[in-house]
């Protein structure tokens, strides 16, 4: 399952998508929207995607992960539109015969997704809103740039 779109992300659906009789391990990562960022109180986050390319990039990452580790199944979902604080914005699930591969691949997949999949976050806080990482001088927090 690879999905980019609106609507809540279901942890249960992600886990179900990677269920496999050959799997001895399932690792699930959920990224959730945080209330504080760079000392600002975040009201909500908003995500925009280049949907077609985002799906292709996710599929490419899933393929690379399968070549690097012995995996059973991979699922990745990113939510778009407004995501209220405390909700899931991104989810990655991986199943494999043994836990080491599932942990390693899950970690790698979320790290790569944040670097290459064309999705952008806009933070709404009290008194304004800002695209994260847009310009060095345009209000994008420097720490956010390092964290990507």
């Amino acid at each position, binding site marked *: 399952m690879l999905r980019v779109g609106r609507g809540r992300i279901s942890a249960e659906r992600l886990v179900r998508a990677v269920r496999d009789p050959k799997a001895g391990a399932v690792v699930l990562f959920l990224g959730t929207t945080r209330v504080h960022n760079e000392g600002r109180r975040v009201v909500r986050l908003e995500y925009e995607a280049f949907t077609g390319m985002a799906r292709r990039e996710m599929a490419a990452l899933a393929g690379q992960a399968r070549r690097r580790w012995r995996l059973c199944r991979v699922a990745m979902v990113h939510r778009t539109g407004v995501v209220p604080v405390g909700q899931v914005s991104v989810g990655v699930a991986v199943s494999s015969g043994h836990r080491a591969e599932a942990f390693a691949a899950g970690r790698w997949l979320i790290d790569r997704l944040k670097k290459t999949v064309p999705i952008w976050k806009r933070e709404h806080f009290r008194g304004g809103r800002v695209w994260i990482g847009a*310009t060095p001088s345009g209000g994008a927090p420097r720490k956010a740039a390092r964290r990507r």
Partner: protein
Amino acid sequence: MVRLRFFAALRERMGAARTETLAPGTTVGALWRSLVAERPELARFQVRFAVNEEYVSASHRLRDEDEVAFFPPVSGG
């Protein structure tokens, strides 16, 4: 004819999409520089390029019917 698409902070300044007729062999970087010449405030943006939904470098040469996307560094997650 080449289709240009913009995303996130760049979309807000340039609109979502437009088409341009380009001289043969125009590179993505040259096209971006022509946009910056038109709108100098774009110069402060870090920009990534994709052609037909794949990342390319600034030296990539555009062909007729290509779709070229301009966007800031990604920040999903």
